[in-house]
Each structure stands twice: as structure tokens, then as C-alpha cells.
């Protein structure tokens, strides 16, 4: 096996272009996918026409809030293309300069101030289904944020009014008198008056009024809490069930490294076995007894060579990326274990592919055709597709090493679930399965 390994290394050394392509291509693909995953989509261009009078304000209680404050919330997630009229905005959407248009009506401030009718903004969409979906969800989310912000303002104004009703003070709005007595104080004053009254009908009436004042003060106090609940009925309390929460950047690193590992290993292992057949050397090597090299030995040599080379590239990638993305080097032992076992599993799949193909080109094509869809399937998150379809995807992903390798590396780098050990056992089982398949494929020698 030593001499066969030496021969393969010599051939690799003389195939510099192939080696360069073999490393650059998967690393480039992996980095592109990694960047695509880690970066949020760009802000969609939206034409905005504001028909409200300049400086319009919304009257909330005794305070005036400029309408523009809500626009900030609304426009935070989009790239605003200012338009002077509805027609111009629609024209920009039609011509594709903008994916959507938002028309703010002239009476928005009046309707917001009234507290009786809802204010409306008009949204006009264009573009293909994907673009529409993106811009629609962005605008819906921005509108929800603006609504939430507005309801928060209204709640604060209402809460201030309730406080005044309860505790008293100066009402500077609505033409109310100065130094108003609060409901809480009315009860105390009334009880003092009642105590001075002789028993009789007047005292009974006053006692009933004092009781009502007590009741009203208590319930008005509760209404402040009710207002908070109504303005934001559901609050989000986020937590992660398994391990610590991984940032999107570190997950993207794991994806990029796993994809590179897979491509390099599969192509080298599949190409290595197929090359023996392409050069007509396979039969010469394994004929016998005694064979020059046993079939198992030949497959192990190819798988180990591919695993070794891909491991070096993947580990170098991980180490290089750690200069830009914070990775926990105290877990380097687990990185090595995850990379090594994953590389071996990919090597086993690679030699199985190589054992089926007659030529290096066919083996490479087969490796690409098999690995690319598998990688994308493994990246489909739970809940992104219908439950039945996800079950099929999960079953396919279980049968190939990419998802297990991704989980092992994610566990090693990000402490994500499932545990590294489970994924490594899965990978070892797949190595045995594909090793056996390769052995069957190698029965055909020509």
C-alpha cells in the first residue's frame, strides 16, 4: 500500500493544474455559499410618495408627535426612492426602478389623531414572485414595527391620563381646571366628611359615593396594566434548547468547510479509483492470488489519501477563517475528530463512486451530480418545506455523509446539537456501508 500511496502522491504532484482546481473550486463554492447564508438580503428599493402636509403632527393626549417619526420606523428596512406623486411612484414600480411603492395619504395625521378611524397607507407591488415575497415580508414587518411603536406612544399618553385621574394634578389639555383632585384622594376626603355626618339618609348616600370612589380608584389602577397587555399581547422570550446559540457567521463557516471537505475528498477518492481502471492497471494490481495489492487495501489507500488531503485543506480553511470569525480554539481536538471522521466517510463514498465508474471524468461528474443536491438538501431547515417532504429529505440526508459531517463539525465548532459523538458514530456507520458498496463495485475489473 505504501508504494501505491507514493505513486498516487507522485501523480498528484505532476497534476498541478488539477490539484489547484480541486482546491480552489470547492473553496470558492463553499465561501460563496457561506457568504450567502451569513448575509441578510439587501434592502429592497421602494418608491415612497408622502402626500401628508409637511410637518404634520399627531395629537396624542396633550402631546404632539411628528408623523415623520413613524416614517423612520417604516423606512428603516427599505431603500427609499422618493417620489413626488402617486403616478410617479406607480411608474417607477412599473419600470422596475422600484419593487414596490408606498403611498402615504394626506389625511394620515388626522386619522391617527382621531383615535376613531384607522389610518391607511397604500402599497403597490411588482416584480417576480420571489421579489414580491421578499418586499412584501419586509414592508409587512416594517409596518408591524411602526404600528407597535405608535401603540406604545398611545399607551404612554393613556397611562399618563390614568395617573392624573387617580392621583390628581394639573390637566393642561382639554380645558380642564388646575389642580384636579384624583380619584384616590376623593375617597379619603369623602370618608372624612362621612365620619362627621350624623346617621341618616345623607350619610348613607355619602357612604355609597365613597364606596364607589374606592372601587373606581382600584379598577382604574388595574387598567394601566391592561393597556400594556393590549398594546403588546405577546412578548418574545427567545432561548435555544440544545447547547449555546451559534451565530449565523460561525454556522456559515461550518457549512463552507464541510462543503470544501466533501468536494475535495469525493473527487480525489472517486478519481483515484477510476484512474486505476482508466489506466487499465486495476486488474494488474488485484489479480491473483497472490495479488500485488488486495482490493480492500487499494480502496483503503484511496480513501485515506483523499481523506488526508481534504482534511489538510479543511483544517487550514478553518484555521484561516478563525482570523476573521471568532472560533473557540479550546475545542480544536473536537474539530480534528469531526474533520477526520467526516473526511473518512466522504472518502468511503468517493471510492464507492470511483468503483462504479470506468473513467476519471465519469467519476468526477457522478461525484458532482450526487454531492451538490445532497449538500443543498442537507441545508434545508426543518419547517421550510411541508412535513412529508422534509421527512423524505431527512431520510435521504441520513443515507449520505454530508449532513452528519455538517452536524459533527457544527457540534465541534459551535457546540450545536446533536452531540459530536452521535454524528461521528453515524459517519462511521456510513463509512462501513459505502466501503462495502465500493468493494462490490470493484469486483468488476475492466
Amino acid at each position, binding site marked *: 500500500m505504501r*508504494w*501505491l500511496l*507514493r*505513486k498516487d502522491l*507522485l*501523480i498528484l504532484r*505532476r*497534476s498541478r493544474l488539477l490539484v489547484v482546481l480541486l482546491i480552489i473550486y470547492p473553496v470558492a463554492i463553499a465561501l460563496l455559499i457561506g457568504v450567502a447564508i451569513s448575509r441578510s438580503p439587501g434592502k429592497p428599493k421602494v418608491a415612497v410618495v408622502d402626500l401628508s402636509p409637511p410637518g404634520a403632527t399627531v395629537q396624542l393626549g396633550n402631546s404632539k408627535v411628528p408623523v415623520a417619526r413613524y416614517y423612520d420606523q417604516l423606512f428603516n428596512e427599505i431603500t427609499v426612492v422618493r417620489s413626488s406623486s402617486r403616478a410617479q411612484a406607480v411608474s417607477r414600480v412599473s419600470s422596475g426602478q422600484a419593487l414596490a411603492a408606498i403611498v402615504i395619504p394626506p389625511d394620515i395625521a388626522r386619522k391617527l389623531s382621531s383615535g376613531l378611524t384607522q389610518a391607511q397607507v397604500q402599497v403597490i407591488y411588482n416584480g417576480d414572485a420571489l421579489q414580491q415575497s421578499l418586499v412584501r415580508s419586509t414592508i409587512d414587518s416594517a409596518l408591524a414595527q411602526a404600528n407597535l411603536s405608535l401603540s406604545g406612544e398611545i399607551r404612554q399618553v393613556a397611562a399618563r391620563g390614568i395617573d392624573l385621574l387617580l392621583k390628581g394634578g394639573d390637566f393642561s389639555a382639554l380645558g380642564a381646571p388646575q389642580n384636579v383632585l384624583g380619584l384616590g384622594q376623593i375617597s379619603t376626603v369623602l370618608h372624612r366628611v362621612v365620619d362627621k355626618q350624623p346617621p341618616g339618609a345623607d350619610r348613607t348616600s355619602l357612604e355609597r359615593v365613597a364606596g364607589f370612589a374606592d372601587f373606581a380608584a382600584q379598577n382604574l389602577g388595574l387598567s394601566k396594566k391592561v393597556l400594556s397587555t393590549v398594546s403588546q399581547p405577546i412578548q418574545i422570550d427567545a432561548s435555544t434548547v440544545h447547547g449555546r446559540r451559534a451565530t449565523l457567521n460561525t454556522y456559515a463557516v461550518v457549512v463552507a468547510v464541510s462543503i470544501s471537505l466533501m468536494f475535495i475528498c469525493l473527487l480525489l477518492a472517486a478519481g483515484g479509483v477510476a484512474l486505476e481502471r482508466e*489506466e*487499465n*492497471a486495476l*486488474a*494488474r*494490481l488485484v*489479480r*491473483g*492470488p*497472490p*495479488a*500485488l*495489492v488486495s482490493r480492500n487495501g487499494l480502496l483503503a489507500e484511496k480513501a485515506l489519501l483523499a481523506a488526508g488531503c481534504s482534511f489538510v485543506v479543511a483544517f487550514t480553511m478553518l484555521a484561516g477563517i478563525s482570523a476573521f470569525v471568532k472560533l473557540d480554539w479550546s475545542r480544536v481536538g473536537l474539530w480534528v475528530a469531526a474533520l477526520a471522521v467526516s473526511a473518512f466517510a466522504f472518502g468511503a463514498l468517493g471510492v464507492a463512486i470511483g468503483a462504479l465508474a470506468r473513467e476519471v471524468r465519469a467519476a468526477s461528474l457522478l461525484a458532482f451530480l450526487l454531492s451538490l443536491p445532497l449538500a443543498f438538501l442537507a441545508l434545508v431547515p426543518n419547517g421550510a418545506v411541508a412535513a412529508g417532504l422534509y421527512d423524505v429529505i431527512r431520510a435521504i440526508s441520513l443515507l449520505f455523509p454530508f449532513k452528519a459531517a455538517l452536524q459533527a463539525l457544527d457540534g465541534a465548532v459551535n457546540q450545536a446539537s446533536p452531540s459530536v459523538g452521535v454524528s461521528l458514530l453515524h459517519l462511521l456507520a456510513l463509512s462501513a456501508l459505502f466501503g462495502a458498496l465500493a468493494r462490490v463495485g470493484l469486483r468488476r*475489473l475492466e
Partner: protein
Amino acid sequence: MPEPVLSVQGVTKRYGVRDALRGVSFEAHAGELVAVIGPNGAGKTTLLSILAGIQAPSAGTVGGVPGNVGWVPQYPALYSKLSVAENLELFARLERVADPADTVRQMLAQTGLEERADEQVGRLSGGNRQRVNIAIGLLADPRVLLLDEPGSSLDPRQRERLWRFIRALVERGRSVVFSTHDVGEAERYAQRVIVLADGEVLFSGSPAEFEREAGGEREAGGEHEAGGQHETRDFESAFVEFLRARGH
């Protein structure tokens, strides 16, 4: 008669319901050059691959000196990115020969490729590649050398040089068994021909004996030419007639 270096007894090979070989038996002795001839699909390559240990027979035995069979496939089994010497050294080490470096030197001298030793095999001509291919088959100094269609990819000049080389091996006591489509080649170089058709041995003997047997049949069939032109009929026509007479 000395002990045979290769003894084939009742070898049968089945692929599903199809019999590729049916009870093939023959022997080869030291210093003998044996040609296996037959039409396409006769089972020549299957027979040689069983003798080489690439496939196992479904029935029958292959005896002789165990592990002492050199094999030269039809298409050169060489690594084109390695040089001539590197190919020879690799296989010498895999064959576990006692002194790989010395064996490589000897093979380069024997094949006349000393000056091309450092050239990558991918850049060699078809004839030179075939010489390296044969040299690898000889690295372990086998007593029997199996050659599958050795001259098929060579031009006449290269073929002539190849046969000189093979005859020299036979003169040094090696037994050579080769398969070929070219019955003229078998007539010219082989001491014994084995005619195979549909997996069966139809004839085993010298080329002269074969010509006599095939010629007799022709005469019996009344197809011979008048005026003693029987002698001028070439070996190839005799072969075709022989097969036709047996329904092949």
C-alpha cells in the same frame, strides 16, 4: 515430456445462463509459444483472464507453478504520468522482487528502452508503451507469460520487433501463451495453436497440423481448387473454412 508449467483442466465459465467457456483443457510447457485463436466472442480474453487470476473459473482447475504467471493485458496497464523507470520500479516493488533497482535496469536493457527511462509513459509511442507493458509482465521473472492480443495496436514494424522480443523470451525457456485475432501471426510465430469458438476448444496442435486438418475438410467438402493449388491456400482461409465446417 517434461512437466507442464501450465495445466488447464476442464475450465468452464458461466455468466448467468451463458457459457463463455466450456470444459477447456490444455497444457503449456517450458519454451513453448502457444496461440489461442478464435472469432470474436470465442472466449479468448475470458480464458486468459482466468489463467491470469483476474477471474475465477465456474468449474475446472488451472494448475502449474502457483503465482508464477506474468500477465500482459491487451491495452497497456501503465501510469501515463509516471516515467518508464518509475512504472517499472513501482511494479517491481509491488511484486516484491529482491533488487528492484537492478531488475529495472535489466528490463530497460532487455526492452531497449534505456534512453527513454525518464520519459513519461504518456509521451511514448504505442509500440514503446507495449514494450513497457510486457516488461512489467516479466518483472517477477515468471515461467509463463500471458499476452492478450499483444500486436493489436502496433504497426507492422513495431509488431516485428515485438515478436523478435517474444521469441527471444521463449528461447530462454519461458512459456508464452497469447491470444490473437490475427491468424497469420499465430501461424508465423506459434508452435501450437488452440482454436476456440463459442467457449469450446475445437483444435489443439501445431499450425501445420491445423492446416492439414482444415485442408482435408476442404477437400472432403469438394471446395478445393484444382491443379494442386491446395498448398497456396493461406492459413487464414483454412481457419475460416475450419470454423464454417463446424457451424461457427
